[in-house]
């Protein structure tokens, strides 16, 4: 049977973003290695992006709007995703992949991982909406609902990750399109973005990288 353009998108889910990023002079390492070595499957940059002293208001139940640092705790990781809750296709696909990846970790490993979603659509995504969305995928206390209506702060967050987003012009009904960088980032306790996974990365691949990163961090806490 002939294979159609859209069929090839199955492959494109992983390949196209990787190739694009590679074309942008970002170094891709270890693609396709699926063993549990120290090699990461996701994209790593040289030099890595840094979140520096970036902190964003967290509307999750445990934080209630207090700012949190965008980095891993102690020997842990913060996984960061820029998205919006009216997104029915790309965002839930990635968050479901992440949910499945976290389920592959043992409880001690999983405790060291926090998940943060930064809404790029803070007007529609109130803290309550964001919490409802994330609670669908993650355990209470595991997720952070990062939201700011300060456009300059949101732009700084984008820039820290090399991400971007765009809100379209509202139509007559007030609806508008949203586009956003759809990568999932892993940030270590020093605010270094250690790896990023493009849309469509398999849960197994994410889990494999998480285990590698968590092992490395516990072996050399000062590395």
């Amino acid at each position, binding site marked *: 049977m002939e294979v*159609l353009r859209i069929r090839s998108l199955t492959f494109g889910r992983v390949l196209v973003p990787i190739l694009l990023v590679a074309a942008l002079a970002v170094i891709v390492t270890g693609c396709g290695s699926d063993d549990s070595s120290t090699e990461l499957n996701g994209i790593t940059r040289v030099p890595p992006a840094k979140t520096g002293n970036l902190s964003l208001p967290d509307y999750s139940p445990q934080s209630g709007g207090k700012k949190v640092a965008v980095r891993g705790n102690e020997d842990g990781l913060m996984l960061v995703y820029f998205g919006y809750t009216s997104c*029915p296709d790309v965002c839930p696909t990635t968050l479901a992949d992440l949910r499945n990846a976290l389920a592959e970790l043992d409880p001690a490993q999983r405790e060291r991982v926090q998940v943060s979603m930064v809404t790029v659509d803070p007007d529609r995504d109130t803290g309550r909406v964001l919490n409802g969305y994330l609670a669908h995928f993650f355990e209470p206390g595991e997720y952070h609902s990062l939201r700011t209506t300060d456009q300059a702060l949101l732009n700084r967050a984008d820039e820290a990750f090399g991400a971007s*987003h765009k809100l379209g012009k509202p139509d007559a009904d007030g609806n508008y399109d949203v*586009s956003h960088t759809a990568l999932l980032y892993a940030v270590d306790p020093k605010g270094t973005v250690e790896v990023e996974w493009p849309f469509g990365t398999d849960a197994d691949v994410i889990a494999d990288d998480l285990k590698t990163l968590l092992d490395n961090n516990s072996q050399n806490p000062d590395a």
Partner: protein
Amino acid sequence: MKKLVPLATVVLALGIFVAACGSDDSDSGSSGVEVTDVWARPTTPTADAGAIYMTINSKDGDSLTAAKVPSSIAGMTQIHETTTDGEATSSEDSMESGDSMSSDDSMGSDDSMDSDHSMEGGSMMGMKEVSQIDIPAGETVTLEPGGFHIMLLDLKGQIKAGDTIPVTLTFEKAGTVEVDATAQDQ
């Protein structure tokens, strides 16, 4: 989506096979259109949008031109395509964030949003409405995450795993085809 279950039960109780309405069309018969693996993604309680996916095969070639679900489920249904690099939005009159790839960590400095950013950030993904999806003769098109989807807007309730959503598809040649989407996690 709670309303759906009783509805489906009633329909079944009447001995009517919902899918059978379109059976002429869905078995590669005279119309040549076959729709399989129809599924919806479960939504979060506060979501106002959802997505339905499926696989369409056409023996003679056809185009999907419209999709509709009951208004008790969603206020509006559209055919959408997920795009990469912001094709979904016009670049004019939009608020664009910084997209620099800079990795400096001088986060305390003034933002530089009014400087002219080149498109060197990670590619952006969005989605746009399309007028139709073409299925060339003898080929199979899969609506799947990251590609095409049937977009449900103005959702009236949460879509839960196991729910069934009747979908009316309109094809240029085959006409109306009724299918059921089952809500399931990937």
